[in-house]
């Protein structure tokens, strides 16, 4: 254990079972996790808890991943928040739009645990495992 602060990662997905997998993997990799089950909750928690990284599912109720991303990018107080978008393979146009909206990376579902950890680690700049 070091005194260094453990990075907080927000994971938002309306599919609670998939949320469980991502949460399990990231906790095992040593991150603190906060979860949201829709876009509005994800945005509220991002403002309240200031996670270093948000993993946003593209298709969510209330606010889509894309809308949450735009809100984050429009808010100067959230500058520096990293965002990885989770998209379904069937919607490849989403990737293009995400980059235009300022996403840092994306993951295409289904993804392996190794892929997930690799992308998150790349964004947070260090390995926790």
């Amino acid at each position, binding site marked *: 254990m070091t005194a260094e602060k453990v990075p907080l990662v927000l994971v938002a997905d309306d*599919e609670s*079972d*998939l949320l*469980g*997998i991502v949460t*399990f993997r990231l906790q095992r990799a040593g991150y603190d996790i906060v979860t949201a089950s829709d876009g509005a909750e994800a945005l509220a928690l991002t403002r309240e808890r200031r996670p270093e990284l948000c993993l946003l599912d593209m*298709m969510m109720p209330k606010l889509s991943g894309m809308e949450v991303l735009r809100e984050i990018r429009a808010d100067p107080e959230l500058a520096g928040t990293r965002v990885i978008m989770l998209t*379904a*393979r*069937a*919607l*490849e146009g989403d990737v293009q739009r995400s980059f235009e909206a300022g996403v840092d990376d994306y993951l295409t*579902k*289904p993804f392996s*645990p190794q892929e997930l950890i690799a992308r998150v680690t790349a964004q947070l700049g260090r390995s926790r495992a």
Partner: protein
Amino acid sequence: VPEREDRYTRADAAPALIAPGLDEAERLAALQETALLDAPAEEAFDRFTRLESRLINVPIAAINLITDERQVLLSECGIGEPWGSRRQMPLSYSFCQHVVSSGAPVVTADARTNPLLHDNLAVSELDVIAYAGVPLFTAERQVLGAFCITQPEPREWTNAELEVLRDLAAAVMSEIELRVTRARFAAQRTFLTGVIENLHDAVYAVDPSGTPVLKNEALYVMQGLPQGQARDLQRYHDWVRIYEADGTTELTMGTSPIYRALHGERVVREPFVIVLHGSGIRREVEISSAPIVTPEGVHLGAVSASRDVTAARAAERAREEFFALVSHELRTPLAAITGYLEMLEEVDGERLSDDGRDFLRILDRNSQRLLRVIGDLLFAAQIEAGTMHLVVQDVGLRELVTDTVTSAGPRAAGLDVSLTSQVSDDVPETIRGDPGRLAQVLDNLVSNALKFTPAGGSIEVGAHIVDGSVRLTVTDTGIGIPAEEQPRLFERFERARAATEGAVQGVGLGLAICRAIVEGHDGRISLESAPGEGTTFIVELPARQAPGAAPDEAKEAHAS
């Protein structure tokens, strides 16, 4: 011919006319086509009989059309009643029928002494004594009738008089031919109008000044324009506005498809949106437009055809949304299953029995298999719907081949099949294509080869240059494919008999998907095989030029 003239006509100084010798049915058809058989008297023809009568000072002149049952007096001068009003008479009164049957002039100074004419009723009842008749020839050398002159006393016709008769007969025929040609054009116009009116596409044409000159019913139907008298083409643009496909940029006169066509451009199925003024209804249309130019290069105007694709586009969007939804709904639970299986093994794997761990592996393997089948089915549905998307970029050829061999290596080793690669030195570093999809092609082909190659056999994945094309090959030493099964193998759900009988896994989509991907890259897939000796699948891809773009990109390319 001279012999016959000696018998009943005076020798004619003009060159002998040749009898057409054509079928009588064709002659009668030509006669019908003039539409003159039961037409009222016309000044255009009466002018000729009057002129003839005056020019050579003869009391009676007539233009007679001869059918198979009667003589029709198209025009007459001096015949008198009742025939003048009836405008037709039985053939038993007709001298002119002999002109028609011989195709040559019939000339007599005194019919009473002429062996052919002396018992004709016209001699005894109508006092037709002197007679001269010349054929009315069509351009196709059909004789429709005769232009004739008669008088009730004997008369020796001079050559000059007969020449006048022949010249006027030719003038009469010009008049008749003019009418036939006009009627043919009118019929053709009616036919073309029928074609245009019955097109499902909305057609509209302008003259070189851009003034609308033609429309069809579909135009009004599609654009919901008012019926009847309100259909004033000049007011077309009061009713309809055309926008770019985005639905917001209104076209100016200079950017409208028909205007571009007027300036020589061909517009092929470009997407636009039209908005109807009254109702505000929006329709998505595809407009094609082309200049109309004579072979000599004279510009006559331009035509535009619009197709309403509103319903088709909506169906396409609904289908894509459906695929996305189905894809999500099928994959999400499977992703959860595989995810939690992995977690279970990690968390509790140590505590499970060997059997329990085996069961977990079997669960995982089957989930992965189901995931692949769902992926294949959804992709096949995309291909079917024409919505296959290729993400085109540079693809490293060597990596493509070695990655395939590496990833299938463990399976091949497990089956005791040797799996190697062979890449020629002269292949390019990269080709243009969708790396994921091209890898899928090679993976499918290698998976296939593994299914049909017995233990101890070998599989080689190759990349070569043949005739300027990149040739990717997957060669196995398997059981081979009989010639009769080869042509259908790339169809969906087709499986080789050996696959069916051998209970080999798969639904028969792999090769159909390979073909769709390869053709999407402007390439070709084929196979060479002999039963018992093995099979080579060959994928030929263009060495450098960009492959066929995804549908969206293709549309943009058209529009630019």
